[in-house]
């Protein structure tokens, strides 16, 4: 008997038991759909994480952080200079593998208020920067200009703001109905007047964009109804990379230094320490040598005191990867378990099915079916049940993903990808084979006469 005919006979029997087969397949259906849907959710989350990674700056960005001096240098602690602007100049001069370097001098956001006409904006950071920050933190100006060398040289009182600050001080486009460009306006930063010379473009995640669209749609639907305030929108602010990005206030580094730091220590002495030195390296493949170069320069400048460390984005990415891997594992365990249960269901039903068909099997043997033919027939039937279940499961997973999206429209939308689908189908086929072998073996081993006489 050829395989095609075996499949044909097997399928006929499945068709004859539509309802029972459907129940049997349920385990496989759930297993496959949960596997595919979970994978889609995770892919969606992954995409969201990658988005915010990019918002924070690229992979080739390395931060030079302050670090407690090691134990063996503890006696030198009071000689630790901290990160200063001279480190930046030294790195610029002596570390050619560093492409861009961006020093930052952050002002205390608790004591430095940003106000305009009695309105106060809550900001993510108020920082003195070099123009290199644009490339470093991946900012794009939408209106106006960024600082020039003269602003830096003369420590001009100019600033560039994110759209979030504009929204807070002058009203957002959603509220006022028009896009307000605050170039030329004067705001108070820590009580000192600053002129806004530029504004960044608005950054938002896909999630946020969808939320906005949703709000718009809802508004249209309820027509003039009370605009609903989303309770959690405030709570997520600090955790959200996009919120932080939209609520910055940048000024020239020199301005920050002269106007805010010249006597900022408690005893009235200046505080020249930088809060951040970000570097971008020329080539990701040369990450290690570039860091070594930077380390050498820093060690020279700091008299050998190791009071700094390099924080690469890789660490964070590894964190994210670990989280994703953990999710994958738990997802795999769940899907695997339900596929296993599905397999047991199939084996159970195949055993019941051959038990009630013993005489039919005897008849088939009497009219010329060999044991191999019977074996193939039962096995094919089992595989077919599993595969049909897998296909139904795939279809169901699309429905499931739709449901997930409906249930939480603001989350990163799940993305269905091919590899988990293939994996799920392959695994179902395997389950079908494993579940079918024993019943098939049992049926094939029946003696024709005993099978024919079975009551």
């Amino acid at each position, binding site marked *: 008997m050829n395989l095609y005919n075996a499949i044909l006979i097997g399928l*006929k*029997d499945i068709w004859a038991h539509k309802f029972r087969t459907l129940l049997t397949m349920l385990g496989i259906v759930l297993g496959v759909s949960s596997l595919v849907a979970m994978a889609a959710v995770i892919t969606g989350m992954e995409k969201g994480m990658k988005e915010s990674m990019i918002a924070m700056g690229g992979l080739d960005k390395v931060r030079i952080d302050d670090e407690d001096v090691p134990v063996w240098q503890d006696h030198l602690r009071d000689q630790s200079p901290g990160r200063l602007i001279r480190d930046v100049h030294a790195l610029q001069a002596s570390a050619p593998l560093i492409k861009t370097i961006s020093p930052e001098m952050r002002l205390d956001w608790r004591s430095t208020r940003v106000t305009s006409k009695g309105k106060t904006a809550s900001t993510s950071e108020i920082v003195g920067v070099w123009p290199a920050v644009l490339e470093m933190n991946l900012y794009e100006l939408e209106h106006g200009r960024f600082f020039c060398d003269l602003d830096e040289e003369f420590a001009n009182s100019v600033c560039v703001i994110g759209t979030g600050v504009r929204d807070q001080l002058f009203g957002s486009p959603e509220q006022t109905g028009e896009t307000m460009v605050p170039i030329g306006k004067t705001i108070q930063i820590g009580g000192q007047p600053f002129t806004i010379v530029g504004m960044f473009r608005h950054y938002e995640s896909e999630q946020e964009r969808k939320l906005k669209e949703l709000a718009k749609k809802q508004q249209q639907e309820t027509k003039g109804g009370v605009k609903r305030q989303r309770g959690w929108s405030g709570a997520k602010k600090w955790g959200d990379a996009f919120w932080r990005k939209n609520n910055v206030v940048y000024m020239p580094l020199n301005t920050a230094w002269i106007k805010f730091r010249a006597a900022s220590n408690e005893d009235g002495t200046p505080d020249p320490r930088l809060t951040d030195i970000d570097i971008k390296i020329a080539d990701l493949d040369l990450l290690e040598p570039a860091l070594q170069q930077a380390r050498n320069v820093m060690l020279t400048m700091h008299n050998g005191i190791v009071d700094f460390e390099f924080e690469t984005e890789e660490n964070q990415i590894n964190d994210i990867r670990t989280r994703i891997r953990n999710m994958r594992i738990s997802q795999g365990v769940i899907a695997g378990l339900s596929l296993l249960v599905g397999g047991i269901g199939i084996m159970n039903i195949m055993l019941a099915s051959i038990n009630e068909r013993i005489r039919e099997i005897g008849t088939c*043997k009497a*009219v*010329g079916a*060999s044991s191999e033919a019977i074996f193939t027939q039962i096995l094919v039937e089992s595989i077919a049940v599993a595969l049909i279940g897998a296909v139904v499961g795939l279809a169901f997973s699309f429905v499931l993903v739709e449901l997930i999206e409906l249930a939480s429209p603001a989350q990163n939308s799940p993305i269905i990808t091919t590899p988990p689908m293939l994996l799920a189908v392959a695994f179902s086929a395997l389950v079908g084979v494993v579940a079918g072998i024993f019943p098939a073996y049992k049926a094939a081993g029946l003696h*024709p*006469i005993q099978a024919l006489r079975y009551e």
Partner: protein
Amino acid sequence: MALVELRDIRKTYHLGGEVIHALDGVDLDVDQGDFTSIIGPSGSGKSTLMHILGCLDTPSSGSMTLDGMDIHDATPRQLAKVRGEKIGFVFQFFNLLPKLSVAQNVELPLIYKGASSRERRERAMQALDLVNLEDRAKHRPSQLSGGQQQRVAIARALVNDPRIIFADEPTGNLDSHTGEMILETFCKLHEEGRTIMLVTHDPEIAALTPKKIEIRDGKIASDVDAKLSGRESRFKLNRPADT
């Protein structure tokens, strides 16, 4: 050479400590075109004999050839092939597969033989034509009467154009009128030159066949040629049985 040759066939079963000789030295020749009935009381060994003749079972000892092929030492796989190609079975309880249509039931032996779907359909319709059931091809067995079901089973037995047809109490589950019609069908097949062996416990049915073999206690008690015995047949046979 006879179509089937049995020489000193023995079949023993071990039930607990007891040894049962179901067949105890059977010699038998079946020629091409024979219409033979095997008769005997229950437990006489007639079913065992038919199973061995039908290649469903192998003898404990003795030799058997069917169509020139040694059966007594064939592998199960070879036996399956012989059953599929040279033997047709008709059972007392019809043994049709309930979930397949009439045509699919008739096709079954061809499926295991590996015939193409077109060939299967054509030959199944031919076989159904022989038993006058071609208009029921799409029905389920459960939608047919007992006699019709048995005729479907006969069509299934014929579809492979077998060398020999075995019928095990083919009328045992039918009323007498339908049973007669089935027997008429067999007679018609016999007239067309088919080799048929019919197992029964009913002497009246056995009397209809040109040849009769009586089994008692695992041995052939008598081997009677109906023509010689001079018994009258209930059925008018157009052609005398060739011996």
